[in-house]
């Protein structure tokens, strides 16, 4: 039992618990909270894995950004806090079987793969594991991005730029998609068909 193991245990438990919570809770709000816990714990796992940069990104982008966005979506689309959408019993049972099968298959693979790649924590000569320390990964990652630091000499600038542009396009598109449909809002007394037509007109205009 090392400190890393202990911390891993804590974080892994939190992550798995959060994930299970996401899957199990019916309330979207609770799911969101579970997701926050899960993702934060995964960020902790990243810190344990000597990847503070990734962890920080996970926190700031995922937890601080994406999940807030999701909660925002919940707020905008959910009629009430307690409202739940039920699914059928048969579906639940079949889903349970599928989940067990999937978990078994993945677990079996994970154990097999873990055996194949033994990768033990790195200790120094005094037996103190340096896992919990925060190594300087920022500069290596940055240099790797530029294709300067690593041995391979292959940078990630092009993917980075592609992803940047992609992100920009996606965000513009998202903003456009989610913009307020004023005509629909302005005519509440119109019958549903008309409303739908108006909306589809709007879609047609987009096309």
């Amino acid at each position, binding site marked *: 039992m090392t400190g890393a193991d202990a911390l891993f245990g804590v974080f892994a438990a939190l*992550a*798995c618990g959060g*994930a299970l919570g*996401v*899957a199990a809770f019916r309330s*979207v709000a609770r*799911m969101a909270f579970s997701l926050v816990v*899960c993702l934060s714990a*995964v960020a902790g*796992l*990243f810190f344990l*894995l000597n*990847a503070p940069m*990734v962890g920080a*990104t*996970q926190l700031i*982008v*995922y937890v601080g950004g994406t999940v807030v*966005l*999701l909660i925002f*979506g*919940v707020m*905008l*689309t*959910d009629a009430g806090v307690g409202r739940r959408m039920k*699914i059928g019993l048969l*579906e639940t049972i079949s889903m349970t079987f*599928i*989940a067990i099968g*999937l*978990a078994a298959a*993945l*677990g079996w*693979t*994970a*154990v097999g*793969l*873990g055996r194949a*790649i033994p990768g033990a924590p790195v200790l120094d000569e005094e037996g103190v594991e340096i896992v919990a320390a925060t190594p300087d*990964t920022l500069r*290596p*990652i940055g240099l*790797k991005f530029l294709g300067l630091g*690593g*041995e*391979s000499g292959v940078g990630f600038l092009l*993917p980075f730029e592609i*992803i940047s542009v*992609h992100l920009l396009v*996606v*965000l513009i*598109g*998202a903003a*456009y*998609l*989610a913009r307020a*449909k004023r005509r*629909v809002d302005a005519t509440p007394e119109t019958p549903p068909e008309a409303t*739908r037509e108006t*909306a589809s007109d709007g879609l047609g205009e987009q096309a």
Partner: protein
Amino acid sequence: MTGYLIVSAVLLTCGVVCMASKRNAVGVLMGVELVLNAASVNFVAAAEFGPPAVPVQVATADAIGVGLDGQIAALFVIVLAAAEAAVALAIVLAFFNQHGTADVDAASELRG
């Protein structure tokens, strides 16, 4: 390594279950996030435990590792997940504006 992989497996399973069993579109999105996170965990774990990245020209079949590439991949996953979430949420909102609900079962107009 095994532990991380198992955590990842649990995350993925929960994500799939979430996707398959949630009728709320946002819940489905959360399942997607979980699946993506499982992938991230695998990437970073591989970066840490896998053999280090070596130049391709000297790499043998079993020596090709990930190294920091895994972390970078994880970064990309996170960023793309953010983009995905933004678009998906926009679609959910558009859907909600049209149908008055975020129930994915209502989105079955393309059924055969």
